[in-house]
């Protein structure tokens, strides 16, 4: 610990933004709450409660009490309008120096990755020495919204100046106005849920039920094993009644998974393959990742797990089914590899967010598909297969669950720790798909 918590910069030389060289943005560590299936363990916790807990756990792990962090960026995909400054409000609930600035980020399920990537860039440019990126989501805390008709009446009532106007406004109320609009994962332009979308993609790529169930099973088993050997001891801080992700089923079997009925794409009849077992449930939770310059970390005796090398965002036109809703990472990876001069096989670990088992498998298949790589990615040759033994080795969202904005932080911290253990120069690839046909991918390098 530094003796002087007020010390804010440790930059040596000229910042890149001022003409100096780029520097590394390093991942120091992370923290998250256990993830909880929605309407369960965290039913009474708000987004702010969860994010504050994740931040406070991070502060405790790295002794950041009273520290002024350069910037905190996080977000929630589903949040109350009153939480317009959710991240700042959460920071004010922590023991960080209250002059730590914070801002909101939102790009659906890739929110955490965007928050972390954007902060890493600022660090590399010399604009920040330290940062915390993350995200939170709680379906249990989701706002119930008045439907448009009711809202129009309420707004009119609000604007009414005279008693008569008010009475007139009130008389417009109809019982139907009381039906709230519940939050969902439906794409606004298609009216299809993410699962329905993925069901088309899974079907189009011919991903079998068994392949999906096997991936789901591996996720559960890998994560349970990781918990048992203490891998998550310095990545997760318990919250409320939970000490582990409660979606995790260590005792799951292929037989149990095979017995589940299709949950998405039921219109495909016999060819429907996506079940509640090989799809991620709605989940509540929060995560946070501590980033910094090397100097900043060294000055505080903080570990340096990995460099945050680069990240790339892509979007696909999914609206009329031209591309699968969750296929954007397939595109983003191609661009990122090209920029970094790497091949898909250069990585020691692959962290591909398991929105659905079908998402991961379709993405892998697409990278191996010559026509897709040529026609869609504009490549001469397919990106090729990956070593499946390096994929999601400590489990992923199928086991942990997926509180939308919190997943990027979970993956980044997990991967950084794995790369650090693997050794300096080891490479990891992150791929996170998101609603709206978007996705963010990133490369981390072990230290």
């Amino acid at each position, binding site marked *: 610990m530094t003796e002087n918590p007020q010390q804010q910069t440790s930059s040596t030389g000229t910042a890149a933004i001022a003409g100096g060289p780029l520097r590394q943005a390093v991942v120091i560590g992370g923290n998250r709450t256990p993830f909880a299936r929605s309407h369960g363990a965290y039913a009474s916790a708000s987004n702010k409660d969860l994010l504050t807990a994740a931040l406070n756990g991070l502060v405790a792990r790295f002794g950041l009490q009273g520290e002024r962090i350069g910037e905190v960026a996080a977000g929630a995909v589903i949040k109350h309008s009153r939480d317009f400054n959710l991240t700042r409000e959460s920071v004010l609930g922590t023991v960080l120096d209250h002059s730590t600035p914070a801002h909101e980020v939102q790009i659906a399920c890739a929110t955490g990755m965007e928050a972390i990537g954007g902060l890493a860039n600022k660090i590399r440019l010399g604009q920040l020495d330290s940062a915390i990126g993350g995200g939170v989501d709680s379906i249990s805390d989701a706002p119930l919204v008045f439907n*448009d*008709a009711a809202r129009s009446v309420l707004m009119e009532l609000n604007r009414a100046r005279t008693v008569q106007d008010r009475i007139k406004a009130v008389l417009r109320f109809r019982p*139907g106005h009381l039906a709230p609009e519940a939050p969902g994962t439906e794409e*606004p*332009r*298609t*009216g*299809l849920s993410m699962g*329905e979308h993925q069901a*088309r993609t899974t079907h*189009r790529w011919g991903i079998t039920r068994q392949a999906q169930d096997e991936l789901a099973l591996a996720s559960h088993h890998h994560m349970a094993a990781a918990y048992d050997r203490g891998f998550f001891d310095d990545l997760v801080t318990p919250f409320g009644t939970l000490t582990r992700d409660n979606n995790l089923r260590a005792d799951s079997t292929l037989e149990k998974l095979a017995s589940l009925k299709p949950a998405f794409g039921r*219109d495909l009849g016999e060819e429907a393959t996506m079940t509640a077992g090989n799809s991620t449930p709605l989940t509540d939770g929060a995560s946070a990742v501590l980033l910094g310059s090397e100097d900043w970390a060294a000055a505080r005796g903080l570990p340096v797990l990995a460099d945050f090398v680069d990240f790339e965002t892509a979007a696909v036109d999914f*609206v*009329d*089914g*031209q591309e699968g809703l969750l296929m954007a990472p397939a595109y983003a990876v191609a661009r990122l590899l090209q920029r970094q001069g790497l091949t898909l096989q250069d990585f020691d670990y692959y962290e591909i967010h398991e929105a659905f088992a079908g998402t991961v498998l379709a993405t892998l298949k697409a990278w191996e598909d010559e026509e897709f790589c040529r026609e869609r990615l504009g490549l001469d040759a397919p990106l090729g297969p990956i070593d499946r033994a390096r994929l999601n080795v400590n489990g992923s969202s199928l086991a942990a669950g997926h509180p939308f904005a919190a997943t990027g932080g979970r993956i980044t911290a997990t991967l950084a720790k794995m790369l650090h253990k693997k050794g300096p120069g080891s490479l990891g690839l992150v791929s996170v798909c998101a609603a709206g046909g978007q996705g963010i991918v990133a490369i981390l390098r072990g230290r």
Partner: protein
Amino acid sequence: MTPLAASYRAALSTAARDALLRRRRPQSLPARTLLVHDHVIGEDLAAAYAGLFPATGPLDPGDLPSVLVHIAGFPAAMDLMAQADFPMPLLGMVHLENRVRHHRPVPAGVPLEVAASATGLAPHPAGTTVDLVITVHGPDGDQPGEGPVLLWEGTSTYLGRGVRLAGHPRVDRRPREAFAAPELTARWRLPASTGRDYAAVSGDYNPIHLHPLAARALGQKGMIAHGMYLAGRMLAGREPAGAGHSWSISFATPVLLPGSVSLGVTHSGAGTARVTEVTAWNARSGKPHFTGRIEPGERPTAIRRPRSSGRPWRPS
């Protein structure tokens, strides 16, 4: 312009008179063309229309959606059909299809000239069809002596069920092709208020869209969605900016409200040859609701638009 409600009232009274007097309808179409001058589509109406399709966001008031233009011309067509000299009764007419060429952008706040005429009486296995043609002209073009520019023309085909006109041969029912649904790309969940909401914007208060009992009284299985609402939703977010496109929609079975419509959208070709085809069906019954097609066409030049919509700008 005659308000639509008045048209329905006129149609009702005509129907009543017909029934009472056992009068025979005329056997040919009136040759009249109904003209409406200086019709302005206000920005308020445009905003209300946009509110029907919140997922696709606000409109460009300088380039209104095709169905909103149709709404502007629809009362004139209704007026024509509601009169006693129209060969088939308005009430109970079935909307079969629409074909629209949207030549140029239609701006809000600009006086338009709307013309409606009826044409193409034709036999149909279930009765007789008629085409209602609406054209919308804008102000004079840029070239000297160019005259009002054709912005939009649309043809709506209606079926007068059971109407048999003298001299028309009987047409046999074609065997119905088995319907195979394409890949699902979207699903619309239509609440019970869909018809009422669209009626409030379009002025088309045909009772079959408003209340299940009224709809049943008029021979429907229940309250159904406006065909043009379905067309509007199909087009929302898919019309090219700057117009020049043409589109069509062909209705098969009505969409009951509240209800859910499955859609499959496919694209073929590219650039101006790109064709978007839409198939809508009922996932439960497996029956098609409609098919549609959008072709981008050549992008034309936009017409002048007054800077301020405060004072009506008149063509000289």
